[in-house]
């Protein structure tokens, strides 16, 4: 890709509509169009959530009332207090969930990126075969390895502890390894060659060049892992037996029965469980778009 030389870059907005005649109005039009699309799509995306929210403040007797159901007839915030009371130990569940998600995100991020770096940048016989093996671990449906896994964890004495939820993440997950590898592969080689000439060790190249350059993908992987562990109730369901060790997602799934089809409390509790993840995403999303990481580095 050749860089056009010596041209004046001051007139960016004009250039961005290159061969358009109405060059000045075009960006504004495009922006308006972008907004329209964003808002329409956003509303569509919001519908399920809005319905949830509106049900969560409704009176139980009104839940089934006709109408689209997006605008509640009542606004009963006490539903949230009721839902918390039904959950019995919400603080404890929150603590357990935070423990599991924090550890799995940090542990998973470290080991997955380490393994991904090796697959992206280090040459060794058998590497490609091993990479296929990594991906192949997610090709076998988990339903048939559930019982053997159960026996392994029980054999390790991990039944009814949080360890089966936490420890596997520390060995890296195929999803994360693959995704991070794809990004590492796009990082220009000259960077690390320069570092190598300066006498950098392989680990330092990974730690001081690749990781800082990959904030967008690391943030993405962190979000995925956080969301997955936050919402996972199957693993806790299988391995936990003590009430005080439960996670929020398991408590939600359990109380689905208690609430029966008491949609109001279920929706209130689901909203409460959802908010921390949403907040985290809202705060963290800017790490995904950390500017043009590569720009300038090539010059």
């Amino acid at each position, binding site marked *: *890709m050749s860089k056009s030389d010596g041209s004046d*870059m001051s007139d960016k907005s004009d*250039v961005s509509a*290159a061969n358009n005649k109405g060059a000045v109005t075009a960006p504004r039009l495009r*922006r308006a169009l*972008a907004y329209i*699309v964003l808002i329409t799509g956003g509303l569509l995306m919001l519908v*399920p959530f809005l*319905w949830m929210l509106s049900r969560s403040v409704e009176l139980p007797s*009104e839940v089934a009332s006709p109408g*689209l*159901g997006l605008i509640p007839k009542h606004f009963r915030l006490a539903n949230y207090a009721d839902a918390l009371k039904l959950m019995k130990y919400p603080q404890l569940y929150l603590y357990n969930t935070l423990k599991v998600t924090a550890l799995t995100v940090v542990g998973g991020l470290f080991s997955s990126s380490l393994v991904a770096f*090796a*697959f992206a940048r280090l040459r*060794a*016989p058998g590497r490609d075969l091993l990479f296929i093996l990594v*991906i192949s*671990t997610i*090709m076998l*449906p988990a*339903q*048939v*390895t559930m*019982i*053997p896994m*159960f*026996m392994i964890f*029980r054999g390790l004495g991990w*039944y009814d502890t949080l360890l089966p939820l936490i420890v*596997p993440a520390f060995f*890296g997950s195929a999803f994360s*390894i*693959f995704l991070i590898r794809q*990004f590492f592969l*796009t*990082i*220009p*080689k000259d960077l690390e060659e320069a570092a190598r000439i300066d006498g950098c060790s392989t680990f330092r190249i990974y730690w001081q060049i690749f990781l800082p350059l990959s904030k*967008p*993908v690391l943030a993405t992987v962190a979000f*995925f892992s956080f969301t997955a562990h*936050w919402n996972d*109730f199957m693993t806790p369901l299988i391995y936990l037996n*003590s*009430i005080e060790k439960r996670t929020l*997602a398991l408590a*939600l799934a359990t109380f689905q*029965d*208690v609430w*029966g*089809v*008491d949609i109001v409390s279920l929706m209130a509790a*689901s909203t409460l469980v*959802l908010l921390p993840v949403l907040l985290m995403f809202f705060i963290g*999303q*800017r790490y*995904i778009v950390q500017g043009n*990481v590569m*720009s300038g580095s*090539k010059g």
Partner: protein
Amino acid sequence: MRRITTVVGFTIVMMCLATGSLRASRETIVFWYGATQDERAVYERMIAEFERANPDIHVNALLVPQSYIERKLILSIAGKAPPDVVRFYTHLGGELMARYGLEPLDDLVRRDGVELKDFYPVAIRQNSFRERLYGMPWLLSPNALLYNIDLFRKAGLDPRKPPRNWDELVRYSLRLTKRDKQGTIQQLGFADLLSFNLFLWQNGGSLLSKDMRDPAFDSAEGKETLIWMRSFLDREVGDFTTLQAFNSSFKGAAQDAFGMGKVAMRIDSPFRIPDLRKYYPDLHFAVAPAPWKKLHTAEVVGNSLVIPRGSRHREAAWRFIKFVTSGEQMIRVCRAASRIPARRAAAMSPAFYSDPIMRPFVDEIPYGRSVPVVPGYQQFAEALGRNLEPALKGQSSAGQALAKADSECSAVLDRAMEDLSRLPLVPWKWLGAAAAGLLAALVALAGWQVSRRTSGSRAARREAAAFYLFISPWLIGFVVFTFGASLASLVFSFCKWDVLTPARFVGFRNYAELLGQDPRFVKTLGNTAYYTLFSVPLGIITGLALSMLMNQKVRAIGVFRTIYYLPVVVSGVATVIVWRWLFDANTGMINRLLSTNMPWASLTDGLHFMWVPLIANPPKWLVDPLFAKPAFIIMSLWGIGGTMIIFLAALQSVPEELHEAAKLDGAGAWQAFRHVTLPLLTPAIFYQLIIGTIASFQVFTQAYLMTGGGPSDSTLFYVLYLYFNAFQWMRMGYGAAMAWGLFLIIMLVTLVHFRLAGRWVYYEGS
């Protein structure tokens, strides 16, 4: 000062030790139960009372979601870490009794002189297999006819004379069914037209032969029953899908068809009564025996208390069971759960017998029947229901449908009751040793290969060493967890294994059945391929477009990103409820929008405007075999937020100078995208293609929770069918064979993708 601290410390330590030893002397039993909100307090009180009366036993009670208790229980029994007492749902669990997953209780009953005569015979029957008792009967749910008094009056029917037989039931239903001008049903006379089991029993028929080894429903009674059901359905509703769409619009509790007066008569259980009273205080209804033809019959479903096999506290568990199945505790629990005690004397107590609503239920129990306790019954029931559907839809005759059901059900029973004692057991110790040897050999071979191939240069050898060191976290995890578990499942795929009794080698039988005799293998694979072919490319294209939008520097873009990521975050339970409501055929939001009136210009007789629905007859989505899969594909698009942020992250590695450069070269927006942005995104697209394909080949949860594979198997995806085999029909060996079949298919597709990747995936670093 220091002395005081020491003394205090010492005392504290001693006290801790003392309480510790006190605790240690108590035996702890683990009790799993599912309960509603109203029941929970009663359980807690019951357990407290038991612990007071039995200070040497501590009860660790755990509330387990009812929909998952079976899976958790099977895993824990197979994994040899079962609980000690479980509240057991007999209609689900014949499978566990018939496969010896539970401890027989006969010796304990005899030893302690528990009088089984005090219990209703139907309750004993549903807890027995081959003359042995596996569960202590506890709560009963006899079904009876609920009918709406006001609707009876309005239709000119005498509410003191509910229908007693089938003819009256049909006559009443037709009078109670109301339609609007377009012919849409506004009020349905009788809702439970599809209960073949009950009708068969009422007509003097039977599901199984006397020796419980063969199906017996393909009989004159069976045929008559099915023909009657078809004509009833025809006259009252019109067709099968309409009935399903009508029924699926109501979700119980605050959306109960009977409570809302949309259904005049229904066969139902006593546990529905509290919700009806709570949400519809003005509802006037009464309870009567279900109308019958030749034989007065009521279906009775029950809850019992069982001790799973392998419990280490059988004696303490039994004491707990005896305590809670006493008449007094039974009455208390039944009142909270709105069920009928399994003890006759307790059922006759005023708490139930003086209540005009509950009394008819109690009176039905002596006529009670329940589904047979035989191995394979769950698959039997599924095969029966599926094969009768064409007859109810008018696509085949009753005789044909019954004959087909009979042959399939009889194969199911034969397979479940097959004598396995001659087949070889799996020598796990030898296999384990062989696997360890294989692993060691592989490691040695790999080590030798690596050192041989890098023998040329020291640098290459050091790089290879660094590579293996760097991937060691994954390698260790693979060896410790994945390798052994996958290998075990591979062994199971060559076995017949019902999870509860030891696995036995059957060679390639599972694979032969999969490829040769199971028409649903191709069907489910087709469903899955359909889903994958649409959802993966659609997801990538929309995700790409969305990420381009999200990469703009416009105001509040963070809020937009969060909104688009939101559906990914909503927990599964809530999602299912929301989507069921959105896609509901009659009341759902999607169909309401599709059928809103739009202004329309017509030119037929001169130009004039009129209001017509956008789509006059919107699809019935989740109850229509043609539209159920598209509904799932649409749903998958709501999860686009995940794909979006992957591409958004990838877009950050597109240097802005490149863009500017392209534009200055005179490239249009499309060309800049096509030649600059897109190539740099290909690694991320490749990832999404591979992972998306793998994930959608394994699509499971939504279908499991929302449709259960229906209608007419149209959303029976491969892994869902696998799950049914492995965990519901107890055919883990077959499930394992299915899993490895899928593994091969996915592997093939992935390898092809990797082979083709060189042509279009662009890595700047390489």
